[in-house]
């Protein structure tokens, strides 16, 4: 036990040192363009050891930009909008996905008929629907919610459907002989055996909801993290762009960690998740 925690501390120290090293290297490379010239007789090799900050900015600049953003309240404002779009889109998409998945999962004939059509819509790159959504919902928050929702919907829908199709019929039979009626079968056998599948849908859907919201903001908007990205890019402010990317990276990482923890907690009784 002690050995193990020691190992973890060591690993984490190494990871932090590696990160600091990377940032230092970045800081050092960034600067007035300069080259190491090597004369090879036939031609001269020019190796750049400084790169114009216009292209790659530098960590110190990015950090100070982050502080500015945070202090002015801009960060909270834009970030909360993106997260709002993501969460609402996720909830709408996931609940529609679960409901429709369940409904269709119990109608075998209908499912067979509509299957190719659903597949066709599913194959469409969802981002390509953005212009349509602009027509329907305008360029406000609604349109980003719609993009996030439709991406999440398909992921959750297909997983729910898969879950219902993989319910072990013997389990259903056994519980039926014990005396369960259809409603109890649904509640006590079918629903719980689809949970890991639905959860897989959620797990895939969460990062995609963020992607949907940000891409929606990149396309047309006046607020949110995607808007901020476009703004900074428009001003040729590389540090600003990196600052926003950094925040998005942190948000995505936190979401992934949360999902992994939830997974460990929920799946104690399942060795692996269906893939």
């Amino acid at each position, binding site marked *: 036990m002690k050995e193990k925690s020691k190992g973890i501390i060591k690993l984490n120290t190494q990871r932090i040192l590696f990160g600091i090293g990377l940032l230092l290297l970045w800081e050092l490379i960034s600067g007035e363009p300069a080259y190491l010239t090597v004369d090879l007789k036939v031609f001269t090799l020019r190796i750049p050891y400084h790169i114009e900050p216009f292209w790659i900015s530098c960590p110190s600049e990015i950090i100070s930009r982050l502080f500015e953003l945070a202090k002015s309240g801009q960060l909270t404002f834009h970030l909360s909008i993106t997260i709002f779009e993501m969460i609402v889109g996720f909830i709408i998409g996931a609940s529609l996905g679960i409901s429709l998945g369940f409904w269709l999962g119990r109608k075998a004939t209908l499912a067979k008929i509509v299957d190719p059509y659903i597949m066709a819509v599913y194959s469409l790159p969802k981002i390509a629907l953005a212009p349509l959504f602009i027509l329907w919902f305008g360029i406000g928050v609604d349109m980003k919610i719609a993009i996030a929702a439709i991406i999440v919907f398909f992921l959750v829908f297909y997983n729910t459907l898969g879950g219902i199709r993989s319910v072990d019929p013997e389990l259903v039979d056994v519980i039926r002989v014990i005396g369960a009626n259809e409603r109890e079968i649904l509640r*006590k056998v079918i629903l719980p055996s689809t949970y890991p599948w639905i959860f897989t849908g959620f797990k895939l859907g969460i990062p995609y909801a963020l992607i949907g919201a940000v891409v929606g903001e990149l396309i047309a908007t006046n607020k949110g993290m995607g808007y901020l990205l476009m703004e900074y890019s428009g001003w040729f402010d590389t540090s600003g762009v990196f600052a926003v990317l950094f925040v998005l990276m942190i948000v995505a990482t936190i979401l992934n960690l949360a999902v992994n923890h939830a997974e460990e907690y929920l799946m104690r009784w399942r060795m692996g998740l269906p893939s």
Partner: protein
Amino acid sequence: MPDKIVLRNISKVFTRDERELQALIDINIDVKEGEFLSIVGPSGCGKSTLLNIIAGLLRPTTGEISLDGQLLKGINTKIGYITQKDNLLPWRTTRENIEIGLEIRDVSKSERKSQAIKLINRVGLAGFEDHFPNELSGGMRKRASLARTLIYNPDVLLMDEPFSAVDAQTRLILENQLLELWGGTGNTILFVTHDLEEAISLSDRVIVFSARPGTAKTVNSIPLVRPRDTIKIRFNEDFIKIYGGIWKDLEEEVGKAEELKTKAELEKMECDQEGFRTSFDENTGP
């Protein structure tokens, strides 16, 4: 003793890929109230199919079943069915799995819990009530599935090779525990196995099934005194005599079942070869 279950002219034909397979033919069995009746037979002779029919999960192609004098229609919820696989719900703990029959019967939470704990102790699962099925050994899962059935007190138990997946030692212990649990309850047990020793040591009567299509070939009374110890009884002279008598019948059927298996495999090989030949011809044709 009155008849608990009456099976009349039961047969079952499965149709798959336009091929017909006669699994059961002309089954006539009367199960008496309170008796321990075993069915032994070679693998594939339709034992599980018969239990599924009695549980109402499968419809017989011909024939009818009555329970307590009433014709059976649909799912038979008056019996307890312990299937070949333990079929515990993997997301429920041992206790929650055992409680499900009472949950369905709307028994209060506290009552459910106290009854479940009692049974958990009786089947020897104390200390494992909060474990999930994948944290239990095969023998423990069998005990749990037995307890899940016993908790709602069905007066008929169908058991399909309940101990076939556990090791020999555990099996002997479980057999004795089953007799203890059953003793004095007056419940009827229909027990399926392909282990003749197990069948004789547990039962009042043993029915030998023929190879497919399965039917009752011989019915044998087992006049050994109760209470029995399923381990010691195997050294009893009468036991050995009974065993010798029934084994002859069973051996013949096991032999036939093996032949059937070999034949099926040969047919399959021929089919594959034919398939190969046609595709070969197609490839080299003009």
